């Protein structure tokens, strides 16, 4: 997988998060759960891993944008939680650049965790399930892009 571009390590200025934390947070949760549900519908998420998420609460916080998303997985769907639980079962916190590097598979989550750029708190085994579930996703190939080869 050769990267045509690479996402640099950056941190947004503090005023961004100062504004971001004052904005309503539910759109983030709505967007994230919609994306996760789409992935589940496309059978990109393994069924046995999904089953272990049932009824658990998750928090994703983008530190330098001040955005947070809380959601749960119940009866086959990811659903936004409009009130943030005091202690979610699992919380991921990182700056935007780290999340982008993770999602594009540019960086390894363990690397980001060791370097303290990604914080994972809560149920460690649940964290491992989520991490491995994201790693196992086979993103659909976009036609027209040159295939990487050795």
């Amino acid at each position, binding site marked *: *997988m050769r990267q045509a571009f690479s996402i640099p390590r950056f941190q947004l200025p503090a005023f961004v998060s100062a504004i971001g934390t004052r904005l309503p947070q539910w759109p983030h949760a709505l967007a994230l759960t919609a994306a996760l549900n789409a992935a589940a519908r496309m059978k990109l998420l*393994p069924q*046995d*891993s999904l089953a*272990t998420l049932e009824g658990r609460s998750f928090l994703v916080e983008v530190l330098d944008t001040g955005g947070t998303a809380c959601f749960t997985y119940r009866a086959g769907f990811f659903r936004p939680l409009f009130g943030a639980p005091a202690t979610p079962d699992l919380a991921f916190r990182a700056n935007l650049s780290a999340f982008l590097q993770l999602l594009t*598979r*540019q*960086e*390894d*989550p*363990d*690397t980001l*965790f*060791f*370097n*303290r750029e990604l*914080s*994972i*708190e809560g149920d*460690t*085994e649940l*964290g*491992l*399930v*989520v*991490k*491995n*579930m994201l*790693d*196992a*996703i*086979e*993103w659909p190939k976009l036609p027209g892009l040159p295939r*990487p*080869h*050795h």
Partner: protein
Amino acid sequence: MQRQKLPELICPAGSLPALKAAVDNGADAVYLGYKNDTNARNFAGLNFDEKTLGEGVRYAQSRGRHVLMAINTFPQPGREADWQRAVDGAAALGVDAVILADVGLLDYASRRHPDLRLHLSVQGSATSYEAVNFAQREFGVRRAVLPRVLTLAQVEHVIRNTTVEIEVFGFGSLCVMNEGRCWLSSYATGESPNTVGACSPAKYVKWEKSPGQMTTRLNGVLIDRFGDDEPAGYPTLCKGRFEVNGETYYALEEPTSLNVLEILPEIARIGVAAIKVEGRQRSPAYVTQVTRTLRAALDALARESERYHVKPAWQAELAKVSEGNQATLGAYNRPWR
């Protein structure tokens, strides 16, 4: 210099995307396991089911690469059939070899599937040529993976005294490296790689955040405390900081990674058949970065032989994914034995 056969590059696959990343970036073979306790990376959500296994084997073999199936935990009393079924499944699937540790299972595999190629797992803990030759004589083992406790001279001594192919580790996180014989995880949790397929299983691990620091506990045992700017490591006993005689330090092992780029020509010269990359628990991004780098180094060695030198860009790429951000030659260049 006599042109040596280049060691094969064996890369980890904890998922289908990781397998494809390894193949696409130049691995000669991938190693993988079932989603259960028959392999030593039995982590939640990791590894292969029947469907992904079939697709993975097809993907690799259709591109001329090999698939090695790790069934390298020890059959637990009363459940021997589970491990035998795993071997039968691997044989039916047409993998290129199975990597086994338990002598009972080696015996089963050699009798039931005489054409199935057998590799002795690092968990089998064969550190001498006598042990390697025993596995060859009794079970027809074709390759042995040596534990990471040997110096390069000791590896060479094994190679000179056996016809079994020898595989060594080339990159990845280091532990106390007493593979197959380590009791530290069992001491803290009652579970170990040999028994359940995981060292320091995640369900026993707690990361506790408090202002200015993070505390790691394994089944209640304090492993380490990190300041906000300090790098973290895997939550295993061997990488913890403990108070010994009034001093607090890494009493057993510092979090670090093995990296053999510097001694690659030596490894090839002594006749190592294959170099293994640790890390089935790591992501496709890690597999991509490490495979690409080691492939480039091996190709450079084939091209340049004695003019081979380590490129700073390779070291930078590998340092990035190293645990503890430092890489060493491990035991290979140790003066003592």
